[in-house]
C-alpha cells in the first residue's frame, strides 16, 4: 500500500532475473517486505519510465535493491534514473548462480544475511569482477 505523507519511506525492489538466484531475489524481497518496514514496488515500472514509479523512487528516503547476481540489473535500473540504492547482491552473500536451488531455507538464510549486512551504496565500495558470476552455468 502507498505510504501517506510518511517520513522514512523505504522502497524495496527485486531484480527480475530468470536464473535461480533471480527467483530467490524475488522471494527474499517479498519476505523482507512482510517482515520489515519496506514497501515493495515494481522495478519494471521504473524500467518502463512510468512517472509514478520513477517519482516515488526519487521521493523515497531509501531505495533498496535485491539483485541475484553481479549484473545488478535492479541497482542499475535505479541508477539510470539518478537514484543510488542500497544494494544487496545474493552472489556476494554466498549463492552461486545456477547452483542454488530455490528453497525456504535459502530464502530465510539470505534474509538474515541481508539484515546483518551493510548494503553497498556505491559501485566503488564493491569489488567489480565482471560477468554474471555463474561460470557459464546460466
Amino acid at each position, binding site marked *: 500500500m502507498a*505510504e501517506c*505523507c510518511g517520513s522514512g*519511506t523505504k522502497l524495496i525492489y527485486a531484480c527480475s532475473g530468470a536464473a535461480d538466484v533471480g527467483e530467490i531475489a524475488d522471494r527474499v524481497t517479498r519476505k523482507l517486505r512482510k517482515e520489515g518496514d519496506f514497501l515493495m*514496488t515494481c522495478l519494471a515500472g521504473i524500467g518502463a519510465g512510468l*512517472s509514478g*514509479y520513477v517519482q516515488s523512487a526519487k*521521493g523515497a528516503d531509501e531505495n533498496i535493491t535485491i539483485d541475484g547476481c553481479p549484473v545488478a540489473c535492479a541497482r542499475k535500473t535505479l541508477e539510470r534514473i539518478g537514484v543510488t540504492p542500497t544494494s544487496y547482491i545474493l552472489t556476494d552473500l554466498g549463492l552461486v548462480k545456477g547452483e542454488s536451488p530455490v528453497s525456504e531455507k535459502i530464502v530465510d538464510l539470505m534474509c538474515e544475511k541481508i539484515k546483518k549486512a551493510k548494503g553497498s551504496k556505491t559501485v566503488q565500495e564493491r569489488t567489480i569482477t565482471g560477468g554474471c558470476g555463474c561460470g557459464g552455468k546460466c
Partner: protein
Amino acid sequence: MKIEILGVGCAKCHKLEEIVRAVVGDTGVSAEIIKVEDIKKIMGYGVMTTPALVIDGEVRIAGKMPTTDQVKSWLTVK
C-alpha cells in the same frame, strides 16, 4: 490542464493543494484541480508515497513537497 493532488488528507496533502491553488490563481492557468484520496486510485498511478502531484496524467513529484517555483514551471512551461 488537469491537476490531480494525490493524498488521503494529511497536512502535507493540504499544503500541496494550497500551493497548487495559489500558483493557478497567480498564473491564471486554466486548470481543473482534483483531490484524489482513494488509495486504489493513487496506487494506480504507481505512486508509493504521498503527497503526489499529477499534471495531465504525468506524475511530477511524489513523497516530497515541491516549491512554488517548481509548480509554476510545471504549469507554465510546455
